[in-house]
């Protein structure tokens, strides 16, 4: 089973078209192995990005360097998944 320990989901609120374009370059790149749960399209909609633990520092720095506002939506993805799994097993029993 794939684990996501330390992975975070970041909620990004782009403020301009320029920031959207920067996020699109991030989305099209494959280096950070990002999974965009919602995609950069307009500054009206937040962009949620699942960031693997190994890429967290680089991605957060990228956002900070470009003054793109964000906050952590899910602190540790695996913790949430573990809880979901516990619920599933309890209900199955």
């Amino acid at each position, binding site marked *: 089973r794939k684990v996501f320990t330390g992975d975070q989901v970041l909620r990004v609120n782009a403020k301009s078209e320029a920031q959207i374009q920067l996020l699109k370059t991030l989305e099209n790149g494959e280096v950070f192995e990002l999974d965009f*749960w*919602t995609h950069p*399209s307009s500054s009206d909609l937040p962009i949620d990005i699942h960031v693997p633990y190994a890429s967290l520092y680089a991605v957060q720095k990228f956002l900070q360097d470009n003054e793109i506002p964000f906050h952590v939506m*899910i602190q540790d993805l695996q913790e*949430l*998944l573990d809880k979901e799994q516990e*619920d*599933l097993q309890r*209900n199955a029993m």
Partner: protein
Amino acid sequence: KGGDTKSFDYATYHRLDAIYSWMDSMVAGHPNLISKVQIGSSYENRPMYVLKFSTGGNNRPAIWIDAGIHSREWISTASALWMANKMATDFGVDPSVTSLLGQMDVYLMIVTNPDGYAYTHTNDRMWRKTRSVNSGSTCRGVDPNRNWDAGFGGPGASKNPCSESYHGPSAHSAIEVKNIVDLIKNRGNFKAFISIHAYSQLLMYPYGYTCNDIPHQAELDSVGQRAVQALSSLFGTSYRVGSICKIIYQASGGSIDWSYNNGVKYSFAFELRDTGRYGFLLPANQIIPTATETWLGLKHIMEYVRDHPY
């Protein structure tokens, strides 16, 4: 056997085998209303089932509803389970549902991507696509909502098999998509096509592959707005309504664009809860509230379709 559906826990997520077993219970509990139709098999040879709600008649006008085409969107499948039971138990009790099913058939596909769904339970909770092998790539799967013959291969879909939005080698190459296309075309007379996704709280109509308005934009927007009013009336959940391209992003090869272009005027896609606390990991205690409110929106659309034959 019908009692099994009463003891079934709709407030938890279930594995595929439990859902398929529940389908048998539904059919056994409502033999004059529900039948289980196998429309084909998935890439990994799992059966693909549709629950057909019908009170008889011959090739009546029909409504198509699918859930879980993206396998990690568990709330979509869980809500469809609850809504199937709601429709069955309200038949003969709620005059609106009784009238609807007296005039139309409803085809409800609860697990549209069974391979992906099984995989989310065993290997990778975040899996979105099908599980097909892609020739020449180590990455598996096609995004089954980029594989329809509607602007196929255009903007908002990827040609990279490793991408989450890989459109596949050709339109309808995903067997899961082709099975649905074949059913819709062979049966004919579908008047609505509704696809249930998660998350973001949106109700959308075509197009996704282009930002041009559809000819019925005003009507579908009005139906959508009223459906969302009904949905929101329960808990105040806020939804946005619009075309896929205008309220999310340009995305080609989507199911409701295909259905609309093939003459199914009332084509809609829901994005269920939430708006950003849990994303795809909506806790199970949110299933029934989500399903309950969605049912109100869905019912409004179905009533409108019933009352506006074309």
